[in-house]
């Protein structure tokens, strides 16, 4: 089968690229072996969390771009970053929307009892930013080992209660299982009445971020009606239910737009001719399926996603074998302490691209003229420290697709 564009990688950058191309009326194939870090690490939309809450995102980004021309944001440019974010937002109309407070970063409470600076916050987490000003009750669940309500209560000087899932004591549960429980009206009825019994003068009630996969705002509003308190979600250890919601929304909308969606498939081979990529092969033992396209986007992520791999000697790009900028030896990949400032040089490694997101070699020459590279696999950012993961994914996915198709 032939496509206008093949997107390799189904994390947020790949999904954004597929969205952008589909909205340009193109025939798109997106292939991914998993959901990228979306379902693991993404709760809110970080753009540049290192900015103080007093600075408008636009101003902060513009200064950042000036100071970091090599950074993916430097290559995207301010205007396109903002365009990309509104394109992302178009998939999330209210009630479940992603919003900022006054176009600045805000501090959301986390599962470690810390506050974390982020930009766009899903409607289910919004009330969390008022935690410091209001009296709150944090809800934990027996048998759910990835969230400890009393730990949060000790940090935030508020109260916590632990509810049981069912009459069966000591049942082990997970975030995904809890999200399904939450979608059952009878379960909500039971926990809401338990909360009503135990709540004192608290006006806020915090839950781990498991308020259902499909209709989190429906779950939130129902619990608010039943308890009389404002409900908010708190980001927890992976997996991320909010991240899965984003994925599910993209999947549904992209399929509606006619995108061919191949989840759970990995590309076994890329077909190259000269400085062009002609297509990909996907191995389904014993069958090999081939797909061809005029243009390709590589959005396979870093080490977790499998876009980058490392052996004892060097770091490589896994699919095309593109050059990866990296320190001279393994000795220099990491700092001596875990919490070091500046952080580990390995996080700055990645694929170099030109202004049109085509991969470059060490001499600065374009290696593949119809391949664009997007997402965290790009060099010269430090998305963990900068808190820029989703912003980089959204904006580079958006721009890479535009550049690919404007040829």
């Amino acid at each position, binding site marked *: 089968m032939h496509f206008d564009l093949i997107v390799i990688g189904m994390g947020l950058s790949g999904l954004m690229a597929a969205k952008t191309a589909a909205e340009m009326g193109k025939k798109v194939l997106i292939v991914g072996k998993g959901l990228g870090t979306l379902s693991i690490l993404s709760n809110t939309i970080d753009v540049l969390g290192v900015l103080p809450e007093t600075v408008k995102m636009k101003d902060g980004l513009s200064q950042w771009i000036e100071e970091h021309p090599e950074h993916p944001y430097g290559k995207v440019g301010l205007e396109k970053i903002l365009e990309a974010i509104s394109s992302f937002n178009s998939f999330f109309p209210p009630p479940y929307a992603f919003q900022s407070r006054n176009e600045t970063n805000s501090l959301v409470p986390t599962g470690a009892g810390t506050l974390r*600076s982020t930009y766009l916050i899903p409607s289910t987490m919004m009330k969390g930013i008022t935690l410091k000003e209001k009296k709150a009750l944090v809800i934990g669940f027996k048998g759910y080992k990835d969230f*400890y309500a*009393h730990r949060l209560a000790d940090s935030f000087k508020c109260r916590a209660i632990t509810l049981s899932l069912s009459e069966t004591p000591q049942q082990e549960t997970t975030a995904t299982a809890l999200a399904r429980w939450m979608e059952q009206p009878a379960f909500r009825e039971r926990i809401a009445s338990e909360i009503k019994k135990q709540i004192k003068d608290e006006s806020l009630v915090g839950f781990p971020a498991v308020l259902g996969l499909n209709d989190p705002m429906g779950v939130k509003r129902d619990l608010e009606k039943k308890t009389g308190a404002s409900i908010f979600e708190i980001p927890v250890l992976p997996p991320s239910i909010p991240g899965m919601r984003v994925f599910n929304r993209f999947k549904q909308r992209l399929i509606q737009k006619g995108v061919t969606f191949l989840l759970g498939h990995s590309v076994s081979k890329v077909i190259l001719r000269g400085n062009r990529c002609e297509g990909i092969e996907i191995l389904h033992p014993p069958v090999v399926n081939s797909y061809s396209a005029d243009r390709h986007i590589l959005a396979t992520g870093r080490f*977790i996603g499998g876009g980058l791999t490392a052996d004892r000697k060097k770091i490589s790009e896994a699919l095309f074998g593109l050059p990866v900028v990296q320190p001279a030896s393994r000795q220099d990949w990491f700092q001596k302490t875990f919490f070091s400032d500046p952080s580990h040089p390995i996080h700055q490694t990645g694929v170099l691209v030109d202004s049109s997101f085509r991969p470059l070699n060490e001499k600065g020459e374009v290696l593949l003229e119809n391949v664009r590279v997007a997402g965290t696999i790009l060099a010269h950012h430090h998305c963990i*420290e900068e808190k820029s993961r989703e912003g980089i994914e959204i904006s580079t996915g958006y721009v890479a697709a535009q550049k690919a198709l404007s040829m």
Partner: protein
Amino acid sequence: MKIQTEVLIIGGGATGAGISRDLSLRGIPSLLVEKGDFLSGASGRNHGLFHSGGRYAVSDPEAARECIEENRIHRKIAPHCIETTDGFFVSLPEDGLEFRDRFLKACEKAGIPATLLTRDDALALEPGIHPDILSAVKVPDGAIDPFTLVLENARDAEKNGAKFLLHTGITSLDMEGGRVKGVRAKDLIHGEEYSIEASYLINATGAWANQFLRLAGLRIGMALSKGSLLITNQRMSHRVINRCRPSSDGDIIVPNETVSILGTTSVRSEDVENFEVTPEEVDLLILETSRMIPKIKETRLIRAYAGIRPLFQSEEQDDDRSISRGFALIDHGKRDGVENLITITGGKFVTYRLMAEKVSDLLCQKMGISVSCSTHLKPLPGAGKYPSLPERLKKMGHLISPEKGEILCDCELIQRAEVERFLKEEKVKGLQDILHRTRLAKGTCQGGFCIYRLLGLLHDLRMAEGDSNEVLKGFLEERWRGIRPVLWGTALKEEELLESIYKGIFNLGP
């Protein structure tokens, strides 16, 4: 606070705990002071080899004889701490057979049962070893659990009246007329100060021996040798695999439950507190041990660690491996005119009991009493509980049950109820103590997930002390020392995940 004791033991390694038990069985009261937890030094940082003595048969026959003797004793007194795997000494083509023949003779002389196996017989028993081996010699090596062994020595000693002060450092000595009258000590966690009067002092601080002696203005000849080791994510062989050649870097693979430990290097060190495993050591250990088991090259490593061996030297010697691994018992009365002070250092983990016996004998002589040692006859408290592997497996079959709550540690399958029971029953003073006494954080993720859960549990139980995020950060730094040297491949993926969780989702920073 003022404390009086007959004997003061300084150091809570295998030797200190062994002395404590030996004295308690002889009815002599003692107090043991340790600045960290039990096994904070070399006792908790070795390859866990239950020596047959084979490794010393050629180079140090006396040490070899001590080893095989202790090997026999511990099979009786501590069977539950030992996995009797046997060991192979494999000869590779480049090693030739000349050393093997000397080795066989030396084993016979030292009383170590050694059987020569052909290449085919050895490969049938250990299919993972290099097919090019010339032959293998089987000896009664095994794997030992240093943590259980030392803690059981301490528990038995405590039952017989011995006392312990952990996390307590010695700050100064009171000397009076050729004797140490007492010491001043400080609780390093809560700051309480102690003045301890003792009739006799035993310096069992291992690599820290000179740091303690400095307080008395004394010094002994000692070399510090760093030995680095790697832990694989899976068990590479059933038996201990040694290289049949003169001791060298990377010549041993010791199985330990579900993993294997690759050792070791020997690098002269000056600092007993700050040392790291270098990338060169990691590469060397992989290169050398994969000569014996080729699959090691592709196997994921979960951690690197190093211990400092205290090697006693009577005069300057350059090659650390030529210094005897035998121990040194120093009567500072004879040597320096300090009548009531004894230093014991050097030696090997496996000979801790013998070292304790010799110290206690010397002490009895000084005290003018005659009570004989019984540690070689009396089994440790846990002995006999799970005497055989099938019985241990049977117990494990019931290990996981829904009533015990959620599995906090997915790698080592530890359930909430077990941790809760442990926290309520044991006297622990912080995260490191907990980690020394459970298998939490010992698996593939090295505590990346379960420590967060453990800290949460402490809050649930209202047992959390201080800022849990500071404790968590401290743990992640300590963990970093172990995993940083082995980060590539799958381990690097997991590292990126954990960093994204702790620095990303949870926003913990420097």
